């Protein structure tokens, strides 16, 4: 069965970019518009979760904290995909429970490489 990835970003263009790249690589993809929307999708267990940082309603850091409280996804690897590159933000992300921090812009192939590394 295909591995299912949750991708959370408020940008429609990003959702499409990442959606296409992952589907082409054989993953199943669920998307959400912001952290709050992402939380509403946590009813099932994902193989990995990729999230943006700056989003309306609930930002990426708060979203990661919510994932860590979720019985289904407590141990799901989380990738932060953001334009933020400051060490301070990275520290916050790491403390919240992110496994990988990727700074946009990115090549879709780079994201696939990271997923492969995390999921084998």
């Amino acid at each position, binding site marked *: 069965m295909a591995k299912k990835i949750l991708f959370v970003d*408020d*940008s*429609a*263009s*990003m959702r*499409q*970019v990442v*959606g*296409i790249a992952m589907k082409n690589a054989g993953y199943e993809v669920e998307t959400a518009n912001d952290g709050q929307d992402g939380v509403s999708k946590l009813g099932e267990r994902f193989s990995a979760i990729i999230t943006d940082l*700056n*989003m*309306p309603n609930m930002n990426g850091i708060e979203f990661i904290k919510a994932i860590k409280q979720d019985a289904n996804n407590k141990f799901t690897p989380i990738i932060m995909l953001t*334009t933020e*590159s400051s060490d301070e933000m*990275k520290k916050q*992300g*790491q403390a919240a429970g*992110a*496994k*990988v*921090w*990727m*700074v*946009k*812009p*990115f*090549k*879709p192939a*780079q*994201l696939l490489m*990271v997923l492969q*590394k995390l999921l084998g």
Partner: protein
Amino acid sequence: MSSFHDAKNTYWDGRFKRNTVKLLPGEYHSTKGDEMLVTVLGSCVAACIRDARSGIGGMNHFLLPEQRNSENKKNFAESYDSSVTRYGDLAMEMLINDIIRRGGDRKYFEAKVFGGAQMFESSMQIGQRNIEFVREYLDFESIPINSEDVAGKQGRKVYYIPETGEIFLKRIVSLHNNTIEQREAKYLRQAKETKTEAEIDFF
């Protein structure tokens, strides 16, 4: 590293009686208060975006360093494989993120687009491709463009007040100096060298 920076250059504009932030190519700035933003455009474009309800908004100033793949009928998402699209996407996302960070709500975003002039013969396509990119991006993000003043042969000086959404636009008839061209050519060289691959940290 991205080559986009938050604009830092501010002055008091006596005529408009507002604190004003001046944007250079490769910069963006957003504001929650009563600041005014100003920039001078040749073939570059500026997207002015604001939350029409709260008045939180901002502006960017950029150009695409090269021709995009999308000229071969690829859609935005597919052309993201090209570094040029990634560069433009970053210019737009840096601004949008900054507005959201200040409390702007995407649902109420509206945009105005300026620039993309043909400053000299060879720059026709540069201006045009910048205009097309911004329109395509905003369309993709469902952000309506409620006014634009683009293309043509003259440069523009654009004043934007996000608080009210007002624009004051002056056409620049370039007679003796080519400051705009020189500034944009310098910026174009930087844009071409910008890294469009991700830095990745594994924790």
